[in-house]
């Protein structure tokens, strides 16, 4: 393939293709992916879900909607996002060639904007003026607050109280953008409880309000619609990898919390049987400790937050508390299409511990000058593992789903660069500088072992 045609090939990929052209892997008429998905919801929400489904089906074939979505993604999000070769990181992956799909370079700093702009435009078309959202790490909340500012929508974001503390920077970002952030103090005070509270709000205010769900979970049509808004990631990346390397990747790696960035990049490769699709789940302190969020690896089928899928639960069907250093992956459920892909064996899912993720985080910072989101660092760690397994001939495509600015405080504490009670902003800059000069590449994780990490 010549470079001139290939450049055109990737620039021809637009976000609207992900929603306009059916993927060939659609749920049934009631939103089931095999036995998973569907609508496990109160009747009070059915009318709103029907309305949303109708609005989406209409919009995905409406040239005006598609043109507007593409314009925003080009001029506002900055799509297409680049593909970056990371040769120095690759040396730590058994020589396998690692390519990063740079969703971290999107406006607002993650893949979340792909879905948010689409749903925000739909909200306007449905004539609703108020948007609610849940957020874990704050990336979806920031993206939603951003789109609401742009499109003049009222925005309320529910965020677990634990997460408002570990992602304080994103709370401030949302408030700067004009959103109301409501800390949720029920249950485990993390993402699961933020979704509960958003659902309660939606049941109460469904006439005026759109629930802008941030992942490929929840009741139909969310898993399908959110996936379609994210399909652009894989569509772009597939063309870019072909142009860059002349072949398809050996494996595609992505982190999986609810699963939106993973389904977005996997989907373009589902019909390429030679391409391994591997999702990396939050292993927390290690799945053997019970403190983790590895829903597909360790969970069992059940209904949570509107969908039938895998979830972490006890023998009475009570949802188990998940744990991860990464707020965005700290969720005991997962999108239903991932459940199907797991059962079919088309995708595989493996846990990555906090420590492995933070090692990969450090390594990517040092080797390539890229600070990833801790969520995305799970995918990087997974790619390093895959590289050792697959060897130097492999090409591994990694979805670098977000950037790590929001995680600097957590990382600085993990690596012992600042004291337990200081924040990164307050820290003496020389502490970080000294940490950088005294520790060899990739090993400042060792400093973390002498501290108690963020759990303290």
């Amino acid at each position, binding site marked *: 393939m010549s470079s001139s045609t290939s450049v055109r090939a990737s620039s021809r990929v637009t976000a609207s293709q992900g929603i306009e052209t059916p993927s060939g892997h659609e749920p049934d008429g009631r939103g089931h992916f095999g036995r998973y998905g569907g609508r496990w919801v*109160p*009747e009070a929400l*059915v009318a709103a879900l029907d309305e949303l489904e109708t609005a989406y089906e209409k919009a995905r074939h409406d040239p005006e909607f598609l043109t507007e979505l593409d314009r925003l993604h080009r001029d506002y999000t900055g799509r297409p996002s680049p593909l970056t070769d990371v040769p120095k990181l690759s040396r730590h992956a058994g020589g396998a060639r690692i390519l990063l799909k740079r969703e971290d370079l999107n406006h607002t700093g993650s893949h979340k904007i792909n879905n948010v702009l689409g749903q925000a435009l739909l909200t306007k078309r449905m004539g609703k003026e108020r948007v609610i959202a849940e957020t874990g790490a704050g990336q979806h909340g920031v993206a939603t607050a951003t789109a609401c500012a742009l499109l003049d929508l009222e925005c309320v974001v529910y965020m677990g109280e634990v997460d408002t503390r570990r992602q304080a920077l994103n709370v401030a970002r949302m408030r700067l953008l004009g959103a109301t952030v409501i800390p949720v103090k*029920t249950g485990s005070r993390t993402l699961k409880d933020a979704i509960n509270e958003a659902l309660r709000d939606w*049941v109460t*205010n469904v*006439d005026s309000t759109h629930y802008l769900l941030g992942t490929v979970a929840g009741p139909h049509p969310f898993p399908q619609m959110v996936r379609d808004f994210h399909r652009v990631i894989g569509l772009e990346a597939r063309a870019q990898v072909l142009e860059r390397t002349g072949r398809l990747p050996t494996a595609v790696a992505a982190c999986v919390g609810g699963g939106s960035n993973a389904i977005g990049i996997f989907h373009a490769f589902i019909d390429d049987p030679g391409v391994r699709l591997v999702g990396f789940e939050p292993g927390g302190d290690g799945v053997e400790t019970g403190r983790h969020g590895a829903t597909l690896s360790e969970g069992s089928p059940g209904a949570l*937050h509107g969908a039938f899928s895998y979830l972490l639960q006890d023998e009475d069907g009570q949802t188990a508390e998940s744990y991860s250093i990464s707020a965005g992956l700290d969720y005991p459920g997962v999108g239903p299409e991932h459940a199907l892909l797991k059962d079919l064996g088309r995708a595989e899912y493996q846990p990555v511990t906090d420590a492995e993720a933070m090692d990969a985080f450090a390594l990517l910072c040092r080797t390539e000058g890229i600070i990833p989101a801790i969520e995305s660092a799970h995918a990087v760690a997974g790619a390093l593992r895959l590289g050792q397994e697959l060897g130097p001939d492999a090409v591994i495509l990694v979805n670098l789903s977000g950037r790590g600015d929001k995680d600097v405080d957590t990382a600085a504490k993990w690596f012992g660069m600042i004291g337990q009670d200081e924040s990164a902003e307050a820290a003496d800059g020389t502490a970080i500088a000294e940490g950088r000069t005294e520790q060899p590449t990739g090993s400042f994780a060792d400093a973390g072992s002498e501290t108690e990490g963020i759990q303290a």
Partner: protein
Amino acid sequence: MSGRSVADVFAKCRAEGRGALVGYLPAGYPTVDEGVELLAAMSEGGCDLLEVGVPYSDPVMDGPTIQAAADTALRNGFRLRDVFSTVERVTAAGGNCVVMTYFNPVLRYGVDRFAADLAAAGGLGLITPDLIPDEADEWFAASDKYGLSRTFLVSPSSTDERIASTTAASSGFVYATSIMGVTGARDSVNSAAGEIVGRTRPHTSLPIGVGLGVRNADQAAEIAGFADGVIVGSAFVSAAEKGGPDAVRDLARELAAGVARAGLPQRA
């Protein structure tokens, strides 16, 4: 005198020229034994039907009062099997019990096994706030097999088509949520209550119960003026918290008097 089915319970009330009082309390609140006492007291005070709730970790249809009660029950060691012993003991004390539960605990226990154990304990049926008929194939089979009533919910946001299909899928009684929103006692009965009952009547001959927001005799009487059953939840939980069995018995008496005062509902 216990009815043998939910239909019997409503028929008996009707024969007495009044609607039915339906009281909710989570099983295991604050403990399993105390929960049994509270439910028995509600029955003594005049609840014709008891909704025995299953405490659940993620109660998205419930407001703060019932969430807190469920948390208390779970913290005090409630296990799903306790719902069957609760139903058995309350039934033995003369109560008529249906179970109200989010559906994942039932899925996890096994739908057929749950229905079998509930029927064996003397339970009359199930109310399923987060299960719609579209996803209920297993529950249809199990409820038919064990003779349990199926109460689905209709909502002010339901279309006429949905009301028709939901009531057709129901047995025993239909649960109409009177307001958009989660559970919790409110000062006034929303006008939407009468409207949703009026929209539901043409689609079904089943009794219609109205819930969400009732807390005193006047509200109970107002709802009993147009509905066949008055469903009270959060107010019983609050009463239990403040004054135990005596308080819930008194509240049941007060509400039952309100229901009786209204006579039979006007059917528009």
